[in-house]
């Protein structure tokens, strides 16, 4: 039989949950990480798989946005070429604070096997990276674990502080 009654005897008898502003704000931030659709190479396929119904990124609150203005997190999924380096920097600058970056896969981390003239040897040469995810390519589970770790990182930070702009230099 359905209960239509609020059980006031829970939580010490009051319909109140005590927390701090930090926890509340970080709870909101970490559970609505809107990601920039940014597949650069084969890692992008794994990122798409993570967003599709089998792995279902929506349950983390991670919804892919096609605009950097609406995104909180940039998942750099794939090889960054030297030609594209200026665009990744521009897209990163267009994202609003607070913003985070996951470098997904070997190519984005270190240039990977593309030890050549045309590849940027790690996106951290161009934009600051919060989390490096190894793998070639990382499976969707790995990417979701990386997002969970990033959520953990966000929760451990102070929510209200002067946001030090994250610049490489």
């Amino acid at each position, binding site marked *: 039989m359905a209960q239509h009654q609020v059980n006031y005897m829970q939580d010490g008898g009051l319909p109140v949950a005590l927390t701090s502003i930090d926890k*509340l704000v970080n*709870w909101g931030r970490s*559970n609505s990480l809107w990601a920039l659709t940014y597949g650069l190479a084969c890692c992008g396929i794994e990122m798409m798989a993570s967003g599709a119904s089998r792995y279902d990124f929506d349950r983390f609150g991670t919804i892919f946005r096609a605009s950097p203005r609406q995104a909180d997190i940039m998942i750099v999924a794939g090889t960054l070429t030297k030609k594209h380096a200026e665009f990744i920097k521009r897209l990163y600058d267009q994202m609003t604070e607070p913003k985070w970056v996951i470098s997904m896969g070997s190519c984005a981390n270190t240039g*990977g096997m593309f030890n*050549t003239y*045309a590849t940027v*040897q790690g996106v951290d040469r161009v934009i600051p990276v919060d989390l490096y995810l190894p793998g070639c390519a990382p499976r969707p589970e790995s990417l979701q674990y990386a997002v969970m770790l990033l959520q953990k990182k966000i929760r451990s930070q102070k929510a209200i502080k002067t946001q030090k702009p994250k610049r490489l230099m």
Partner: protein
Amino acid sequence: MRAYTPKENVQKKAYYTDRYWVAPQVAKFDVESDAVFSEDLKAIKDAKITVLEAFIQVDQMVVYIKPEDNVATLELLRDECGYTQLSELSAIDWISKRGGFEVFYQMLSMTKRKRLRIKCFIDEKQPIESVQSLFRSADWAEREMYDMFGVIINNHPFMKRILMPDDWEGHPLRKTYPLQGDEFAAWYEVDKIFGKEARDIIGPEIRDTARVDRYDTERFARLGHEVPKGAEFNPDQEKTPLAYQEDDGVFLIEGFEEDKSQIIRDRKR
């Protein structure tokens, strides 16, 4: 005895070469051995086009012509001989040996089921006429030839780099271009985004991607033992699980209880 050569940089040049070794060559056959090809070659010769050399190699005819005849030859082959497709076009770097490029045009005839290759040799800075007006496929192929080798094309409608950035220096497919790039390539993105003065701050590219510093906790951490940036490395570090609300962890994030979840077995429900 063989003369001694320094062995510091063996990657650059092999210090041992067999002096009796002869590079294997693909067999060349006379054009007369194939009726279709000998007819095509006759058509080229009849059109007053100088044929420097012609042979059949791997069932394909190779014809060497003068570089100034390239448009006339390709037009003749397309209109008279049925070679209606230009499947490939590029250059071969012979700068160190012969001081120029060998430009080749790979042609295909669907009616004759034959492929032939027109080749011509140009000096390093000698321009070659565009065949873009005959074959649309030559448009991008010639741009790539310019981008990768620096072959100058005359009368191309949009002579611009196709793969590398517009402000790139050098032509990467030349034999003299290092695989890992010259100094310009190594600093390209830093120079462009941050300016030349940022080179010292950002530092050179770390090319050895196989190098793993297990004490570098800023870049590597074991799964389940993640550490924040700059944390001290501790080999006896305990596992750091994800804590839920009931474990005094994250606010409003509860753990998943399998026995309380409902499993839908009826798919039509």
